[in-house]
């Protein structure tokens, strides 16, 4: 698809806004609709768009396999270890209250971290799945 100049230019123009929107959805999920899952999908969509226009190899140059794999595992680990941290602080698993001075702030912090974990894993998995499909050749 390399010869479509309009597509290439518009994609490049759009990308930062899509990514920005992804970040907004990720960090604004407490107040409006959205959260880690939706943000992860939007984030992934940006790179999927990029790889559709510029080729999978170009996208892989930005996000190598190793980073994506670390992301897949890292998000789950982040989520699960927030719970382990709570255990160490003497609370039940995934009880975020003791993570800050006040229970309410602890909850807020916990939700923030957990949503971040969701976002990382979802984005990495979606990109990996798409790249895997896109790179598959019948031989």
């Amino acid at each position, binding site marked *: 698809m390399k010869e479509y100049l309009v597509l290439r230019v518009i994609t490049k123009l759009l990308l930062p806004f899509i990514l920005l929107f992804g970040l907004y959805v990720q960090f604004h999920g407490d107040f409006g609709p959205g959260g880690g899952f939706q943000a992860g999908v939007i984030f992934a969509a940006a790179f999927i768009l990029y790889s559709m226009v510029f080729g999978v190899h170009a996208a892989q140059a930005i996000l190598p396999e190793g980073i994506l*794999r*670390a992301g*897949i*595992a*890292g998000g*789950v*680990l982040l989520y*699960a*270890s927030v*719970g*382990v941290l709570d*255990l160490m602080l*003497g*609370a*039940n*698993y*995934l*009880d*975020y*209250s003791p993570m800050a001075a006040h229970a309410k702030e602890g909850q807020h912090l916990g939700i923030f971290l957990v949503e971040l974990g969701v976002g990382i894993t979802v984005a990495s998995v979606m990109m990996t799945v798409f790249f895997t499909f896109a790179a598959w050749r019948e031989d």
Partner: protein
Amino acid sequence: MLSSHLPVLVIIIPLICAPLCILFRGKDQAFGIALLATWASFACACLITARVMTEGQISYELGGWPPPIGIEIRIDALNALILLIVSGIGSVVAPYSRNSLLLEYVEDRSSMFYSAFLLCLCGLMGVAVTGDAFNLFVFLEISSLSSYVLIALGFDRRALTASYQYLIMGTIGATFIVISIGLLYQATGTLNMADIAKRLPEHGYDRTVISAFAFMVIGAGLKIAIFPLHQWLPNAYTYAPSTVTAFLAATATKVSVYILLRFLFTVFGVHFSFEILPTAAPLLILAILAMFIPSIVACFQKNVKRVFAYSSVAQIGYMILGISFVSVTGLTAGILHLFNHALMKGALFLVLGCIFYRIGSCHIDRMAGIARRMPWTMAAFVGASLSLIGIPMTAGFISKWYLILAAYEKGWWYVTVLIVVSSLIAVIYVWRVIESAYFREPPDDLATVSEAPLSLLVPTWILVIGNVYFGIDTSLPVGLAELAAKSLMGVN
């Protein structure tokens, strides 16, 4: 301090170790992590069981939110027994997987295999301990998705179609379960299983609840592979890698039976499930059909793995039979058979894995005379088969004995006859294998075949010895099964 968190630790240890396996990409590291995680889970399960037996039911509030606001883990004797089965079989199969993988699986992605294995373990145990209906679905899907992957890793290309078929049937089953949970939620306004059970009688058993009941039975039935909803099972078990077959055959259907038990007896309640609705009679008929038709089909199979896959469908019939008695003895028998069947099918499929490891096939004719080359492997096969048939001094005998007791209690002598006759069919299909392995001349190309390596033999024999041990000292499984049966029936 940690001991109060055991109910959640048993789940999150494999859950955390699954991503760790990927981060440490080396094959040995991944194997080490998987092994430690399964053993740690098993240790937790043992401690939990000990606590349940002394203190009774354990409840754990996740996130510190009291149910039904938050999700609760709730463990009684039945949950503890299922937990023991899953984690126990997992800890035996995990070391076994290391060597059998060499032949059956591409090495460079073995860390992911272990990760998927841990996820399957985590999902199955998560289903077994949760007290929340929707959470049960989530963990059921973790175990299902990972088992689709594990099955598809089989050598034969038919593993792919088997996995696809299981994915379709399994997802339909899971969606039916979701529909049922949704209907229950709309009727009672809660997702906590104990809370649903409390609120259902107040709500009344209206048409919504009856519909929810139907969807739950069919959905769970698809996952259990109750005859005639078993079509996905034979192919899945036949073409999956040996390790996977052994693990899934011993655990996955058991957990699904647990779901059925939990919903029929605890959530919907005995009164509604069996007194208002005539559930027992159809279950009895299906159970008896399952005891015979798949057994007969098994007698005509050439692939030994397939023989025992059909045999699994038949054995599920015995568990359903136990349920259909709707008595403490019957349930004890059914639950006991869950435990014992895990031991015997686990052992049998591990034996077949040993054979596949050496000759690359489980075809009955290729196994001709193999007992001379692999005496220990075949001895294990004989031991596990005796348990499958139900010879005294083996675990299989105990559960059949309780089934017969339950039938006697009801005065259903014809059921007793049917149990004995169906066991005789098992003799036929087992004998075909033994005849081939012991009494036929080995072909020339078998001359180089030697005994399976110790790393495969030891786990296999642990399960075989388990079959004998639990046939003699029955206090643990019978004690737990009786406790579970009594609490399910609401008798103290």
